[in-house]
């Protein structure tokens, strides 16, 4: 090999160094951005945790005269969690490098499950007539068809929520996190297929085509 050609390899090596530096910087930037998003979710979660504890305490303390406040608190809280978790879903969909967001998502799923249980308790105590609409979906790799199905269900439920407002309490929970408590809830309500919509703990809708009747169930 000629002497001059050996000099050419300097360019290749320098490019490798620069590319490695830029690439590592990019990856670190990615981790930073994803962590910043996770931190933002963490801060929101901390705030929601307080509200959840408050709501749970309230549901334990209520007497018949306090029902209206408790219902109002729980519904407002569920609404906030529902819409904040939509952002979290976006975050996780955009997360490609770090796993931090996934953990946040699981915490939110547990939080949402607690809201559901709290709501059942309030309904029992107060005999409230609002409807629990729980949407249990597949988060990890749903596939094209299922993803489209889930996006449609999500749209239907948001439309329903906008229409019925305080008459329904809308909760969405990822059903494929393998968290023992969520698995137990799935077992309790016999949920074997994702996505499934459960209305007032006794009506189960698995088929997307049956969702056109959802309005009838929450009159």
């Amino acid at each position, binding site marked *: 090999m000629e002497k001059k050609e050996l000099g050419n390899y300097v360019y*290749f090596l320098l*490019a490798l160094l620069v590319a490695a530096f830029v690439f590592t910087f990019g990856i670190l930037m*990615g981790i930073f*951005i994803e962590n910043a998003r996770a931190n933002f979710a963490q801060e929101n979660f901390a705030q929601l945790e307080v509200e959840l504890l408050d709501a749970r305490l309230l549901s334990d303390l209520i007497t018949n005269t306090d029902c209206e406040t408790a219902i109002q608190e729980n519904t407002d809280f569920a609404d906030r969690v529902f819409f904040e978790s939509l952002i979290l879903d976006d975050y996780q969909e*955009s997360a490609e490098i770090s796993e931090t967001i996934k953990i946040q998502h699981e915490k939110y799923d547990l939080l949402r499950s607690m809201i559901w249980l709290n709501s059942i308790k309030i309904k029992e105590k107060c005999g409230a007539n609002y409807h629990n609409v729980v949407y249990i979906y597949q988060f990890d790799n749903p596939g094209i068809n299922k993803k489209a199905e889930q996006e449609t269900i999500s*749209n*239907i439920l948001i439309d329903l929520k906008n229409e019925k407002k305080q008459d329904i309490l809308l909760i969405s929970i990822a059903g494929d996190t393998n968290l023992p408590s969520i698995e137990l809830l799935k077992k309790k309500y016999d949920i074997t297929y994702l996505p499934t919509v459960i209305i007032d703990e006794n009506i189960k809708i698995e088929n997307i085509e049956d969702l056109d009747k959802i309005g009838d169930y929450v009159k």
Partner: protein
Amino acid sequence: MEILTTIFLVFLFLAIYFMSFFIILLFFNHKKVFYFPKPNKKYSISFLIPAYNEENSIEKTIEAIFASTYPIKEVIVINDSSKDNTKKIVRRIMKKYKKLKLINNKKNMGKANSLNKAIKEARGELIAVTDADSYPIKEAVERMVGFFNDSKTGAVTSSVFVRNKNSFFEKVQEIEYIMLAWTRKMLDFIHSVYVTNGPLSIYRKKIVREVGGFDPKSITEDIEITWNILSRGYKTHMSFSARVYTTAPSKLKKWWKQRVRWGVGGIETIFKYKKNFFRKGMFGFFIMPFVAFTIFMSVAAFILGIYLIYKDVAVALLTAGYSLSLQTTVFRLQNVNTHPTIMLIMVGILFIFSFLYSTYVFKVTKQTHIIKLSKIFNRLFYMLVYLTLYPLVWFDSIYRVIFEKKHKW
């Protein structure tokens, strides 16, 4: 990490690597881009112009060659059995230029055979080949011959610019040609000029004879002869200051045919010289893997892109279908993910870098009309649409290499 993410990261790293590579080449050689050595002797040059139905351009090409600031020994037009007035026009001009000669092929022999025939008759030490629809600037030869001071130099090529810049399609090709010429010059700094273009290239006759001339079996004889020269340890160079203006295809069909021809020729040349992979210095260790890898990456990136787009489009269409049948909101702004992935951010940064890099190229090559704000659409189209869809040419080329035994052009 998902498999798709890993593949994407690999692509991203390679893109960053090649971007860095070309920026480093520029950084260390920016003063030499327009440099050309002065010839240390008087080289005798024979110009060869293969022509087939070139009545519209042949006269202007001959005029451009005779206007050269470097003395030309002879100009040989090889009329490859043209059906138009090419022969008549050349005969008329011969009265004006004594150094102009005409070889008439009784049968159409193809470009490579025509050139080989003319080389036998050429008396120059150097052989300049130009297409009959290309016009070298008068200083072009003067700016190329100095590279032959090195006795190992087998071929020197020029920078091709687009002559016809009227339609949008031609303007986009103008951008492409400048970037191609620039990239080729960058590769010259590592002795890796792997194409000596048809519009204007000069060869050392002795070496052309040694390598057996132009390969008539190859449909891209200019690529083939370059690889032949390189594989035997000779050098090729590029003189960026030596410009030649050529006619870019105005119609998509003609363009497609041209590009597929280049593609098929390129792939066949890779196969012809496959034994040189990772042998013989820069040729085997860089040029061959680089060309093969560029084709592979281009095709693979396209497939990956199509898959990703298909996934999103399929979800959108299915969602729309479900939503319509269930009479619910088809599109909700809320569903649009406004939080870009880090990959998307990095691709965006890479795009901005490429844009700035090309802006620098157009500025130093004094093609400032391209960087005007009013022309930004042409540049964006070139970067986002033209380059993105280019792999389709590779698909057609690969298909033809596999399934067609003989290529007719």
